């Protein structure tokens, strides 16, 4: 099965990923190691980190407004789509994410390019 990990980040903690900030390399090393683990384990399908929600734009029934869609402290900061044999394996992978905070794990229903 395939699962999407929707990674929630607390945006009030300031923008992540500033290369000049302290601990940036350790932070990135954690993510690189995680990505490599997914690839080596045959779990990788896709994934990306996103620009902060302040850059979001919402298109609703054709009308364009400044986003995000829902104003909350926690916003989606990135996602993965992974292959796992069942939910337990997916949850194990999600638990290893180097991100603090909550990850929503959703089974993928249908992926046209799969």
């Amino acid at each position, binding site marked *: 099965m395939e699962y999407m990990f929707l990674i929630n980040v607390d945006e009030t903690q300031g923008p992540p990923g500033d290369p000049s900030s302290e601990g940036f390399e350790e932070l990135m090393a954690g993510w690189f190691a995680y990505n490599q683990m997914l690839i080596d384990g045959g779990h990788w399908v896709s994934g990306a980190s996103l620009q902060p929600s302040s850059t979001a734009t919402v298109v609703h029934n054709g009308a364009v407004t400044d986003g995000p869609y829902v104003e909350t402290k926690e916003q989606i900061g990135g996602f993965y789509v992974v292959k796992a044999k069942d939910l*337990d394996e997916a949850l194990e992978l999600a638990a290893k994410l180097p991100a603090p905070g909550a990850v929503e794990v959703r089974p993928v229903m249908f992926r046209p390019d799969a």
Partner: protein
Amino acid sequence: MSVDDALTRLAREESGHVLALLAGRLGDLDLADDAVQDALLEAVRTWPTQGVPDNPAAWLLTVARRKAYDRIRRTTSARRRTTAAAYDLVEAAEPAAGRGLVEEGAGRMEVADEHLRLVLLCCHPALNQDAQVALTLRLVGGLSTAEIAAAYVVPEATITQRVVRAKRKIRDAGIPLSIPDALADRVEALLTVLYLIFNEGYLSRSSPDLVRVDLADEAIRLTRLVRELLPDSAEVGGLLALELYQRARFATRVDGAGDLVLLERQDRTRWDREQIAEANRLLAAVLADGSAGTFRLQAVIAAQHANARTYADTDWPAIAAAYARLDEHTGSAVVRLNRAVAVAEADGPHAGLRLLETIEGLDDFYLLHATRAELLARAGEGEAARVAYTRARALTDNPAEQRHLDRRIAAQP
């Protein structure tokens, strides 16, 4: 045994095993459950006239397997190509473990593993607790949705919907029938569900409705089953002991008018000595290695009460010590509140009050203030007690509690 008793036994004692086996073999919980339900209906239809088979478990497995096959054939009949696969599936559902159900021997372990997978699935943390409870009673306990609904005094449709939604999530989210490496956490979740079921029976015991399934007895039955499946888990033994200690006191917990009787006033000669003796044996065995867990420590506390000949004989220092370990183990504010009561009994009201001062996060819990008030009153601080009683009075909606607190407020000097 009457046919009705045999049918009830079939559902309660055998349907869980058979469902676990079929679900494991078919890899489809829904199909296995439908097939077992079909087979149970067939038993209801045919046993009264044809008699009870010699080996009901084997009968149920055979018939349920045939029903699964019928269902597969019906859904695949339009696609001839897949019909062959249906035969393979049914062949696969003809496992050596199936014989283990009816014959002693190696197959038994495999049946136990399949059964444990089903129990763990029902209590999977990805399901909400209401769903865990409903699934456990329905799939493991073999209760009907009507029986579960009656026991919880909710409409049957509510339970049916919970079960349907949970089964849908199991299927669509891919929740597996498996025994995880990190078993301890999952067992704790499972035991929490069983204790939740037990307490529903324990607390609603005064209901005069005799038709209702007794959830406390069902929980004990299921805990015994889990103990067979996990004989090395000390926490399972601890929970069973805890349930038996509490069950032993049921008859004395309410008076003729249906009002609650406090522990202090219960007629201890009417406590069930056999259940207490069994719990004592269980607890001694699971405490042997000196380790502790939430349920074992609660059982230790219940054991002190159950084995005290009179209320005055209660060994409060031992209870306070067990609460201290439970407090350390759980970090729960409610546990610390109970610990403070035991400490007050053991070392006086001031010691209890000092411990209450350290509790955080229960400011809106009436029992915290009622307890503090009681200890202040015992310490001779009537004015402070009155303030605390008044605070407690404002925080409870329960009329019986309100009457009790009004009396205590009036009694302060």
